[in-house]
């Protein structure tokens, strides 16, 4: 018995210990068990859809409102390095790195699509990929650095593109336009997108975005004495693509009657929970053509950062405040209605309604999500009792003008709001259309103004006179300036301003002006507040003096990060940054 047992053991042991290694490669062929390998993926259209889903994370959103992190503006109290033109050369730039990581993922889908057996079933996802490739090249790269290295394929560590020189600005723009023009025919109309796919890129989104790019580059070239046939072609494309979106009629400005002239205010904080007095939810909003979607319920996906908290009371510039028209449709220096800076809130009276919904009026009560929320939205005594104390415009000691756009009023903790971020909305398309027409032809008809810009202006200003050629002529206005004004006001909080100043080639003029706040001398500010801030000779609050404003020619482009130049000596630095 003993011997038998020992023999079995011995034979078994020998078999195990000697046998396994002789299985050689089989014993070492171990496949991943909890991950999908590339070889087993890309077999059906759904898998291409999953890959396309990933690209929606590349859209600009809260905290990165101008898309590339190089924020700057003359409309807020912006004393950051990009507004001041004091940004320096960086050795590493995550915006640059991320853009190419994203482009790789997009190129990956496009490469797999070429081999796919049933191209028709994935054409929408291929079109989405092209849309997003154009989006990343424009929003993250071209607007920051100018012409860049164009990567059209999935690279390996020995690809020649790694040490390529930059493509020209024209080549980069042409590549972006080509991607969009190839994508548009294969993208569905907004109305053809199934309920389960709402939020995906529509044909209208791609057309609207192409309109934005063509207006951007058309004006960039025009104001730098570029080739006129090139920029006119661009402007024509801006017009035709914007017009296609308008004519399709699949989107409409958000203006529910129940919200009256406050519609725009509640558009930006619209949630599926009660986020406005009328209980309107996101389904009523068809203005957003492409958005980054959030949902507060169950914290499904909440907005990044403390957006409401940071937005409410953030300081705005005098330039912004003065840009709002008066109720007669005229700027403050030409108006016939009473305009005064004498009291804290006098300048808010008889103005474009957007002023009182984008900005906070001194002395008014405001509601705030985490601490002073609307209890029942009826402005009753109980509701008012929970509001913040009457607004004090001089609590930040900066400009005395305060913002209220993007600030939720319902009860919700900070960083748990669920309103969407508009990447493209119809108001912009209207304004792109009007500007492109005017820049292309030097004139714009009253009919075209009514078809576009006046819709934006009159959404919350029903009684304000429309912008027309006669109104401009009668009042000594400048049509170009009025079109630009409308854009600056309507789109102020959505990251367009820096790009606008750059393409109009006025950033080196506008951004070097001192940053001003309220009129202090001779107004209620002087009598109400004891500690006087630094003032200009005119008695205006000086929030940032000229000596700090250094924006110059080189600042029109962001410097290429030096680590990339060291890795690729064919990559040349932008002018003025060498």
């Amino acid at each position: 018995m003993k011997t038998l047992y020992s023999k079995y053991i011995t034979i078994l042991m020998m078999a195990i210990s000697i046998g396994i290694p002789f299985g050689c490669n089989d014993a070492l062929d171990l496949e991943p068990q909890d991950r999908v390998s590339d070889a087993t993926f890309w077999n059906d259209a759904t898998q291409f859809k999953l890959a396309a889903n990933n690209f929606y994370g590349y859209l600009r959103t809260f905290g990165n409102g101008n898309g590339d992190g190089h924020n700057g503006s003359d409309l807020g109290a912006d004393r950051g390095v990009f507004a001041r033109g004091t940004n320096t050369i960086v050795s590493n730039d995550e915006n640059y790195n991320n853009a190419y990581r994203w482009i790789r993922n997009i190129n990956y889908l496009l490469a797999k699509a070429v081999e796919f057996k049933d191209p028709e079933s994935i054409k929408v996802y291929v079109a989405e990929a092209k849309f997003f490739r154009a989006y990343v090249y424009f929003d993250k790269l071209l607007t920051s650095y100018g012409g860049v290295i164009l990567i059209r394929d999935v690279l390996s560590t020995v690809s020649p593109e790694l040490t390529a020189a930059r493509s020209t600005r024209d080549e980069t723009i042409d590549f972006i336009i080509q991607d969009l023009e190839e994508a548009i025919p294969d993208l569905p109309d907004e109305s053809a997108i199934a309920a389960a796919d709402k939020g995906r890129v529509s044909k209208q989104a791609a057309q609207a975005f192409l309109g934005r790019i063509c207006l951007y580059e058309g004006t960039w070239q025009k104001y730098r004495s570029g080739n006129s046939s090139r920029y006119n072609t661009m402007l024509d494309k801006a017009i035709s693509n914007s017009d296609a979106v308008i004519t399709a009629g699949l989107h409409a400005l958000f203006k529910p009657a129940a919200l009256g002239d406050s519609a725009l205010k509640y558009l930006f904080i619209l949630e599926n929970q009660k986020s406005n007095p009328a209980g309107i939810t996101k389904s009523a909003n068809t203005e957003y053509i492409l958005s980054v979607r959030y949902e507060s319920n169950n914290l499904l996906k909440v907005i990044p950062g403390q957006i409401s908290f940071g937005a409410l009371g953030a300081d705005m510039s005098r330039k912004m405040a003065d840009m709002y028209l008066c109720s007669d449709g005229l700027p403050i220096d030409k108006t016939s209605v009473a305009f005064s800076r004498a009291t804290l809130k006098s300048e808010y009276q008889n103005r474009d309604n957007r002023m009182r919904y984008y900005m906070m009026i001194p002395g008014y009560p405001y509601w705030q999500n985490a601490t002073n929320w609307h209890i029942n939205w009826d402005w009753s005594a109980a509701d008012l009792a929970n509001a913040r104390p009457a607004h004090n415009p001089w609590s930040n000691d900066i400009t005395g003008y305060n913002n209220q756009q993007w600030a939720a009023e319902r009860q919700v903790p900070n960083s748990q709001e669920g309103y969407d971020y508009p990447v493209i909305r119809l108001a912009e398309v209207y304004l792109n259309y009007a500007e492109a027409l005017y820049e292309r032809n030097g004139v714009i008809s009253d009919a075209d103004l009514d078809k576009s810009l006046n819709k934006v202006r009159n959404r919350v200003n029903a009684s304000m006179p429309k912008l027309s050629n006669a109104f401009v002529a009668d009042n000594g206005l400048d049509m170009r300036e009025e079109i630009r004004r409308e854009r600056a006001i309507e789109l102020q909080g959505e990251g367009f301003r820096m790009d606008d100043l750059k393409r109009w080639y006025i950033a080196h003029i506008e951004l070097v002006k001192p940053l001003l706040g309220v009129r202090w001398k001779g107004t209620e500010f002087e009598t109400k507040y004891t500690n006087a801030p630094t003032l200009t000779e005119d008695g205006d609050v000086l929030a940032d003096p000229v000596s700090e404003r250094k924006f110059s020619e080189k600042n029109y482009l962001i410097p290429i990060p030096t680590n990339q130049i060291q890795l690729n000596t064919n990559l040349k630095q932008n002018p003025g940054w060498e």
Partner: protein
Amino acid sequence: MKDYTFFDTNPIDMLWGNGRAISNQHDLSLSARNDNLGYRLSFGYLNDGSMLKWGENYSKRYNTRLAVDYTFSPRLKIETNISLEKNDVVVPTRQDQINYGSQPGFPVATVNGKPYAWGTQPARNWLLELGGENKTFNNRIFLNTKVELNLAKDLNLISQVGYNWAVTDVQTQYKYISEIYNYTETYQYQANPAQSQSYYDRGMIKDAYVNTNAYLEYKKTLVNNHSVAVVAGTNYEREDYNYFSTRTTYLASNDVPALGLGLGDNTTRSNGEVRYQWAIASFFGRLNYAYKEKYLFEANARYDGSSKFDPDNRWKFYSGVSAGWRISQENFMQNVSFIDELKIRGSRGSVGNQAGIGLYDYIQLIDLNNTGPILGGYTSRTVTASPSSTLVSVNRTWEKIESSNIGIDIGVFNNRLTATFDYFWKKNKNMLLPQTNPAVLGATAPTANIGVLKVWGWEMSLGWRDRIGNIAYHLGGSLTDNSNKLVNYGGANVVTAGLQTIEGYPLNSYFGVKYNGRIQTDQQATDYAALVPGSSIQSMPGATQMIKGINMYQDINGDGRLTNAGANQYLLGKKDANGNPIADGDIVYLGRSDPRYVFAINMGFEWKNFDFSAVFQGVGQRNIYRRSDWSTPFGTIWQGHADWWVGKTWTPENPNAELPILTTATNKGFGGYGSYNYQISDWSMQNGAYVRLKNIVLGYTISQDLTKKIRVDKLRVYVAANDIWEWSKIKDAWDPEQTPFIVGGAQRYPFYRLLTFGVNATF
């Protein structure tokens, strides 16, 4: 809610109390042996208490082990070891936040001893106390069987199979904390975490590891003192790891954590799984030959395969030879009586290395993620797919390390004095290194066999062991040093500030800016501000933000700005493809990070019933740069800091202070003075040399005459201490054994000195 009540509480004392912890360890073993059978059964118990004074915190271990060997016949012997171990570890779930937010001055509790919060954040001690427990229940089984079979005279076949199986049940509860107040209890905060954030997570790990060996062994002593040994065999190792976990968020009760007792909808339940395997296989052989124990020779060879590589690059062959000459065995040495042992030896060979390679790096994977954009209704998040961000590498293979060594062993005066000395040099010809590629690649390049690394160094040890009267004593020490140089880096190189791997330099080399004094005058501030435009070094203040008392750095290449790129005149001829110097900036080499001149000293004596031993260890030279928020005074307000810097910072009255000015978090609109001053530079580098009394033991064995009476064979009492003394050049009060990066981050267990009193009893 404003709460401005502060005390002079020391958070270390509050969290860790007097630093005392009681641990109990009991071991019991029974053994027996006769001609054929050996038997040993042992039991062990360890209850390890905790120094942390808040929350549940302990480790308990029970183990039993059975070892049996049986000689079936003169030709067959089988040994079996079976061991079972149960280990329960309980720690506070929020232990990782011990140090974060533990600002000095917080009250321990409210005025009436209730849980205290500052702002809405529960104080750290209450997070530990009320935040829930993380319980880990480990069960481990170890089986090992070895068979020795004598096949013929001098020829044995030895086969061994080991199997380790561990099952770990991890139960983590994250409690909501609702009863928290400000100091005066005038305000009760909202629950933080809220009940909807509470969760219970249960995970199960099954980890199996198998190891098999089989080899033939032939040993023969031939005529005339020739002895030969040959070994040939195989080896296979494999691990199967299998983990899954499931979580319920929004628990109904803090008191009954259970997966089925959630209050939320489906989105509050989630699960995950991790599974992987790896295996390596080898064939090996060894030949030994000795003549009269005088001339020694060995040759070995092995053929290794690993599952981590593509099949085409999986198997590699390695071999080596070594030889020794015991001069002391020679006839002509027999008259030199004071020399007992004198041996010179040398070796040369190669081995493979696969450390640092991912398990499936040669297979392109797709990442699936269920936290994609919200599309369709606002009811769910989509799944996204993307290629994994690191490129696959199918042509990667084992690193081949060629090593050579020469050494000498000496024993003299009846082996009372022993010494060895070795000099070694190694070359890693296809070292795996990360590659830096331009960002347009869009992915992280995999490590590749692109490097050539040379390492060389020496080791020596010296020991003295003797007896004076009835005192037996010993004294010894060792000293070792090595150097290395990255001969070839293959890919592109970028020198920027920090810890880098750069061709022509040792691995882990520091690069940084050069200190150039401190701003003391307005003129200096103005002159230095001229360097601001175009500068790219870390946290460069603006031209108007140059204040007195901050560091200045040198514009080495004289281009009027400070740039974060290598200064070529310091970086020894880095050239681009056209032969032009590149990376022309202001960053210089600041030394290597690895310790030099590592030494240890040990000593001890026995006298009557007393025994004593002590071990010192240390390093002779080391460059350390502490990440700046760890060494900047008040670098981050919520991190606890030692007071080493107090009184040493620049002030107008003390312009020659060791440290730069201490400024508020934001001064002149700039929040970066701390990270600017304490960025990596020759000024901020520290000398990490130290010597530490690592271990010291004093024991006393009570006379057997006494202990026999209580049926105890041996009874020894001892006192031992670890890490109780050191001398160090470190300036910022950190433990000198810590690496430059604080392992475990802010939440790591604090350094402690260990004092142990113990009793050993043998029955």
